[in-house]
């Protein structure tokens, strides 16, 4: 187990290093006009050269890369070109917003998806199963931005017009400032992200459970005279959840890099919205910082999923 983990962590570090190379190549090789933007239209070539020098953009690419890696290893991701604050601080401000959306939505979609999947799998080809399949296909094919806008239109705009003001139009209130307001601001983004994923998880759980419920050990469980509820939940779901857990770990990690569309629709300055702004402004340190965070999250999630496997399936522990 320890040897396995060490190997996985080393592999992960290799992946992260490789991603920094690609990120650097993508965002620094292209000609930059950051200095022009910062200097304004009136800037003389001298001013621009000075700005480039101060930002370190005049140095050879490999030197820039090496100093980036060196600083990153010390926890310094550079400065936001425009706000003149450390990228780590930019991330620290945006991350709680993204995490609020991601974690809340993940819990909702996991509960809806697994419940629906189990209901479908235990009554295959029934009216309920077909209904849930239609639900799944409907939301699975619905673009996130459309779902978000529809929610805003009906639950914010129409309700407010009707004099019932429950949900805000968007924005973010920290949990520490007001848990109630935080919740109200989060509900619509959560539903937006969760419904699309819940659809996918319904299908995933259904397929997995249908396979498991056909296993010999389920027949054994029934032959033992256990209640059907216990057969399905204790014996079936225990095995059926394994592929769901894998997917869940990776999906949640994917969201940590930013819930781009949903943050945009609900005007929440999370990592997604911040990185979109950074890309339009060619704010390389911010782009690379957020992308790096997303990479680390996915790598860590993969290792956590592997560890979770060992806890879920005793056969993995020995190998």
């Amino acid at each position, binding site marked *: 187990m320890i040897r396995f983990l060490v190997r996985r962590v080393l592999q992960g570090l290799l992946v992260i290093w490789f991603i920094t190379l690609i990120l650097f190549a993508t965002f620094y090789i292209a000609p930059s006009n950051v200095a022009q933007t910062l200097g304004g239209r009136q800037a003389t070539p001298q001013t621009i050269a000075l700005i480039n020098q101060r930002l370190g953009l005049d140095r050879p690419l490999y030197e820039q890369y090496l100093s980036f890696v060196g600083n990153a290893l010390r926890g310094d991701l550079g400065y936001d070109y425009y706000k003149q604050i450390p990228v780590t601080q930019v991330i620290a401000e945006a991350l709680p917003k993204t995490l609020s959306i991601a974690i809340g939505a993940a819990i909702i979609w996991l509960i809806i998806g697994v419940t629906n999947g189990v209901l479908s799998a235990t009554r295959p080809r029934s009216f309920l199963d077909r209904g849930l399949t239609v639900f799944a296909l409907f939301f699975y094919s619905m673009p996130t931005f459309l779902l978000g806008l529809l929610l805003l239109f009906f639950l914010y705009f129409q309700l407010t017009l009707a004099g019932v003001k429950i949900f805000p139009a968007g924005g973010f209130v920290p949990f520490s400032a007001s848990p109630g307001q935080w919740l109200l601001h989060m509900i619509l983004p959560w539903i937006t992200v969760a419904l699309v994923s819940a659809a996918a998880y319904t299908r995933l759980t259904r397929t997995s459970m249908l396979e498991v419920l056909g*296993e*010999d*050990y389920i*027949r*054994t*469980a*029934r*032959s*033992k*005279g*256990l*209640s*059907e509820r*216990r057969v399905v939940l204790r*014996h079936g779901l*225990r*095995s059926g959840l394994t592929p769901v857990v894998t997917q869940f770990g990776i999906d949640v990690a994917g969201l940590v890099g930013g819930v781009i569309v949903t943050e945009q629709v609900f005007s929440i300055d999370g990592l997604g919205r911040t990185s979109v702004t950074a890309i339009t402004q060619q704010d390389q340190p911010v782009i690379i910082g957020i992308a790096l965070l997303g990479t680390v999250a996915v790598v860590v999630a993969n290792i956590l999923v592997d560890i979770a496997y060992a806890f*879920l*399936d*005793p*056969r993995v522990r*020995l190998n």
Partner: protein
Amino acid sequence: MPLLEVDDLHVSFGTPDGVVRAVRGVSFSVDRGRTLGIVGESGSGKSVATQTIVGLTRGARVSGRATLDGENLLGADPDTLRRIRGAKIGMIFQDPLSSLHPYYKVGWQIVEMIRAHERGTSKSAARQRAVDLLDAVGIPSPRTRIDNYPHEFSGGMRQRVMIAMAMALNPAVLVADEPTTALDVTVQAQVLDVMRDLQREFGTAIILITHDLGVVADMADEVVVMYGGQVMERAERRDLFYRHHHPYTEGLLNSLPTSGRRGKLTPIAGTPPSMITPPPGCPFEPRCVHAMDRCREKPPTVEIPGGGPHTSACWLPVERAQRTKAEAS
């Protein structure tokens, strides 16, 4: 009255291809301390028949009669059947690796079985009983093995665990569905011994489903030969091997290697019939070397005299059974 009695059992399943008539009018019975062998090839309906009487064939259309100790099984509500499963009728299956849950320790699986039927039993008491059961089926150092997972046992040991679990509540009937098919030949005999010992100790009735006539010769008191969802022949073990009447039974015996006999084995030509459109008469008619026009009608149930209770579903003259006896001696 026999302990478990099944009379004129019919089971069919609706499938997209049509109605599969898996069991068509099967009757058998078994008594305390006795072993009934049900023999037949894959798809003959032998597993479906036994799983139906305990309510394990979901979505099937069932008719006929089945009673355990006078209690009706086929019409019983699901909760009554659930209480009978495990407590009064224990079951073991072909592949002990896939039949035990891979994620739970074997002790946990046995304790779960006990506590599902005996709410009042404490966990520690159930665990002690699980240790005793593992000991009884011959698992060495059961006190430590109880905390092992199924994959940490060998095939034979796993099947012993399955037997221990199925016998945990001292059921009146043990249904063993191909219990030795997935095991090495040397291990097969050991597992059968374990079953026989438990039967002697507790007086359990055993229904042994198999396609292996060697296992039948070793274990069964009475034998039912099934083909195409119907009973072809039903006889005491001795009569089946030495005075069989039905050509299908004969075919099975001829495809069995015996020590001392020379020459090639004779397999039965052809393949089993479709269970969606079974032959109108005898299901074996299309493959039978003795087939005649009459065989396309519903076959009779002929009493074969001169031995134990013995019936055969074949038009051939009953003297045929005497002839095979003469050949055998």
